[in-house]
């Protein structure tokens, strides 16, 4: 469970890059890369270490059309947890 006051940020090794060949964003990290869908990009762009998880959920809930806040929260938490498990997102200061 990610604490709501955690301030997620990309791991130093991971860089968000626009891939001009595919037209998608990619997360590039040592020896690997991951193609991101638009909602993943929207979340990662807010993971600067400055915003808390609550603030990120609020910001994306405002943008989400039709989704309830709890649905938005669940999606964000699941995504960030999986990225954290791959050492691509950090919650520590």
């Amino acid at each position, binding site marked *: 469970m990610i604490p709501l006051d955690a301030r997620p940020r990309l*791991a*130093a*090794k991971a*860089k968000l*890059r626009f*891939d001009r*060949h595919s037209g998608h964003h*990619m997360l*590039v*990290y*040592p*020896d690997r*890369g991951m193609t991101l869908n638009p909602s993943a990009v929207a979340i990662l762009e807010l993971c600067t270490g400055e915003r808390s998880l609550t603030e990120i959920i609020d910001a994306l809930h405002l943008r989400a059309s039709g989704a309830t806040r709890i649905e938005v929260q669940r999606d964000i938490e699941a995504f960030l947890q999986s990225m*954290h*498990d*791959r*050492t691509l997102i*950090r*919650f*520590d200061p």
Partner: protein
Amino acid sequence: MNPTGTAPPRPYTLVAELTYKCPLRCVYCSNPVHYAGGAELATETWQRVFSEAEALGVMQVHLTGGEPLLRADLEELLESAHGAGLYTSLITSAVTLTRERLAGLAQRGLDHVQISIQGLTDEGATRIAGRSRLRDKLAAAAWVRELGMPLTLNVVLHRENIEEVPALVQLALSVGAERLELANTQYLGWALENRTALLPTFSQIERARADAAEARERNQGNLDVLFVLPDYHADVVRPCMQGWARRYIVISPDGLVLPCHQAHTLPGLEWERAGERPLAEIWKSSPGLNAFRGEDWMLEPCRSCERRTLDFGGCRCQAFHLTGQLDVTDPACTLAPEHARVVEARQNAATSSNDLVALRYRRPPTAQH
């Protein structure tokens, strides 16, 4: 073969072997055993290669060698690679690194540093690499972190250090590494020359694998612990380079455009040189690169095997160096007709004593500092 007109696969990673020169002489080095030594590519050629690689789809470049720090133009090369939009990794032993030089590289956009560790004791490191002191590595690792860059520690595992996995994990944590790459020796190049001395026993590998898995679990989210299995003890073969000339472009110091670090040791294949024509043309139509693309070249049991799209038939270099044939199934595969050769090497490892075996070293270092 890739008929003219077919689009080649998209490469994602360029492995730029800037030089074969190295202050170390590691007994498992993947550099060629017999290297006649052509002239190294000029600065401008590498710079052109970086932008041509980006245009082909490459997202990241490994600046490696030999020891890339021995290229006096490393700063210029890094600047070009970064300027071309590539994610840049410096793959170094850090033996000749200074803080000042690293700061200059950081300033020019270096994204990631990988430092190799040859041993936890000076005695062990000297035996494996000739010279390599842990305290120099620790200093270099600290500079990487102070300068705000992510750090990978890389350790090649072999019989003499494979029991040190827990200590290596502690070391990685203590220097603030984000990744720890525990790569079992792949028995090609110098490592094949030294196989009897280096190949661990099955129980050593099982233990190390369990230690690495436990460390991975315990440090999830904090340290990425990668354990690269050795072919000789795995049940299935590695998808070597994720397929021949598919996702990686390797360019040797003298400019050969290759599918892997070792391919130019294979006989009868024709390679092209970077700079002599555009990289996109070479990538598409080099006879060597097309030789083992796709599945048409495969023999049985690969040809009808359901794993062929996962492992691509294994490693061509290993197939050749163990059997003398280029297109047979990698003998590391349990289904390979020549699998007995790997089983035999494994049995020799299990029964040989723990005494240190004499090692064959690379020629004396070509650069002294």
